[in-house]
């Protein structure tokens, strides 16, 4: 079936550094999402993105976070600067539409460890 690819699968960085997580969504999808899962906790919605704009974001989407998808390339999540509490697995997802046409397809996750 359709696949969402995430790069890297695991990244370890020092607190205060910048990190970019990359997502290659399903080719004809129009909506893109990031979810965050801290170890042992529930997966939580961060942000969704459509037509070059953030449509909705949660309180977890701090000012240090940003997303973009320049010209149909990777959909990226950038954190600058990182903090210890940013350590988590970040899941990218995409969908063709919303509502009944909005089935989400998820990637395998990018595990971020901030030291």
């Amino acid at each position, binding site marked *: *079936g359709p*696949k*969402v690819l*995430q790069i890297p699968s695991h990244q370890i960085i020092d607190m205060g550094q910048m990190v970019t997580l990359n997502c290659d969504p399903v080719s004809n999808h129009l*909506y893109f*999402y990031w*979810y965050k899962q801290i170890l042992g*906790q*529930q*997966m*939580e*919605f961060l942000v*969704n993105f*459509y037509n070059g704009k953030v*449509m*909705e974001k949660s309180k977890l989407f701090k000012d240090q976070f940003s997303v973009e998808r320049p010209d149909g390339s990777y959909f990226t999540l950038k954190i600058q600067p990182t903090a210890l509490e940013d350590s988590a697995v970040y*899941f990218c*997802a995409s*969908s063709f*539409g*919303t*509502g*009944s046409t*909005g*089935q*989400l*397809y*998820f*990637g*395998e*996750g990018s595990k971020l460890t901030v030291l």
Partner: protein
Amino acid sequence: AQSVTQPDARVTVSEGASLQLRCKYSYFGTPYLFWYVQYPRQGLQLLLKYYPGDPVVQGVNGFEAEFSKSNSSFHLRKASVHWSDWAVYFCAVSLGRVGSFNKLTFGAGTRLAVCP
């Protein structure tokens, strides 16, 4: 605010036995409900989804779930579990309507182990 509770963090069943994974939701309005599965080293995959209509929905690989408004539940069932069902199962709820942009609220997940 909407929430999802999966009361069982871990369930162990014997291969061939029946299975029920529990999910309770808290939601104001008509929810759209989902079960996702995450196999080892893979992303989440949709098992089945409920949109308002028939309360029993069929999914892939013999899974089904039943929506109960009175119990605020959406339990997942399978008549005969296979070893390949060993995975983590997530229940999720969303507004689902056009314009809601698929903002899913997930449960904590239930880790299913299958014994031979």
